[in-house]
């Protein structure tokens, strides 16, 4: 199956493990992502905080590229890009004047016909329909994962139309199909602080601490994520938390591996850890490999 693929800026930089592991999983499941040619930034959180029209136009520009390439669907792994694309589509649909205005700004025809899909939706649906092209070859008896969905996949539900907005299960279901045990917990859709990692790191540390403490209390030894910014915050702030006194269980107590769900699926399908980018995390991921057989 072929579909348009929009990686976005993070997946070509700080989140490149997500890009590598998504491609690896696609190859093993017989999927062919076709990277959108000449894609540009979706505008992320800075465009919508600066100009409504700009935020819609920057996302629509890329949706128009998908149309031009002849695709009906675009798969977008980054939660922030996913949210911007969904928002632009919804905004143009619900505001009658917007479509013409955006067409004028882009300077080319745009019919707003592309559907934005997250890899979780794509793979979960394939699983439900029994169309996953490969079965796990490795067992992970020691892994107890909590699935962290974050903010922008699920909210606002009328725009993203993704799973349940308070207690989503698609990642849990999907990982379960690959033999990964997932646990119930309370912070599935709480905020990690997003871009404040660069401007107000103290806020991010506070939120990351709550998320990781709840994950530990639930008995987890891995956090599975689906967003490059969530990954950056959860992975990078554990050293700060340890410097600030840890969690009471001794120094260096925060060492929770944070893996993209695509990395866990890749491992289950027998991919080499290096090809999934497991070596470039800040928190050691080797313990996860020890939980497999």
């Amino acid at each position: 199956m072929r579909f348009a693929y929009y990686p976005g800026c993070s997946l070509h930089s700080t989140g490149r493990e997500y890009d590598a592991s998504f491609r690896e999983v696609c190859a093993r499941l017989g999927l062919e992502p076709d990277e959108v040619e000449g894609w540009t930034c979706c505008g992320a959180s800075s465009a919508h905080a600066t100009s409504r029209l700009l935020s819609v136009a920057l996302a629509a520009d890329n949706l128009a590229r998908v149309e031009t390439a002849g695709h009906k669907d675009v798969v977008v792994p980054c939660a922030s890009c996913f949210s911007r694309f969904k928002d632009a589509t919804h905004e143009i649909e619900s505001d009658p004047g917007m479509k013409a205005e955006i067409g004028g700004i882009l300077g080319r025809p745009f019919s707003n016909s592309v559907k934005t899909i997250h890899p979780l939706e794509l793979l979960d649906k394939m699983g439900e329909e029994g169309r996953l092209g490969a079965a796990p070859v490795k067992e992970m008896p020691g892994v107890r994962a909590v699935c962290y969905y974050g903010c922008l996949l699920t909210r606002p539900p009328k725009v993203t139309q993704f799973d349940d907005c308070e207690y989503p299960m698609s990642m849990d279901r999907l990982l379960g199909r690959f033999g990964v045990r997932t646990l119930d917990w309370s912070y599935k859709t709480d905020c990690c602080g997003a871009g404040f990692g660069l401007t107000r790191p103290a806020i991010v540390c506070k939120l990351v601490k709550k998320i990781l403490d709840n994950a530990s209390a639930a008995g987890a030894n891995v956090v599975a994520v689906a967003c490059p910014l969530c990954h950056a915050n959860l992975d990078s702030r554990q050293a700060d938390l340890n410097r600030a006194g840890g969690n009471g269980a001794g120094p260096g107590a925060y060492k929770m591996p944070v893996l993209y769900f695509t990395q866990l699926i890749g491992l289950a399908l027998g991919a080499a850890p290096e090809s999934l980018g497991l070596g470039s995390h800040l928190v050691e991921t080797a313990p996860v490999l020890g939980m497999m057989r």
Partner: protein
Amino acid sequence: MDLTPTQVIHAVRLGLRDLVLDSKTIWICASCETCTTRCPQEVDIARVMDAARILARREGRRPRIPEVAAFHRSVLESLRMFGRLYELGAIGALKLRTMRLTEDLDLGLRMFKKGKFRFIPAFANVLATNRIFRRVKKAERART
């Protein structure tokens, strides 16, 4: 956060423009969309925060949390320069704007060692992206 989201909405309804546009809250909102999702009256609070940030900037008000406004400026500047976000460049511009040069320096170094950063920016459709910025500005001027 100096005003709660509820207080922001009340202040908007009472027309207390300065109170809202000069608040810290509008800049400290992370757009997590929880309030919008849960509001029983279906008020799109996150969108109100966006609108307040846009108005504050348009009116030339000094943002009460300047580093957040500097972050947005640095990101959009990078986008105009390269068509994509050049993370290292945008972080550098943000550090210079806020003069917080050493904050998280060790984290930056650890990420650098792990090969997290891309050194050479990727260029993509720079001219077309700049055209979008110009046309948006023109359309917005014509409206006001």
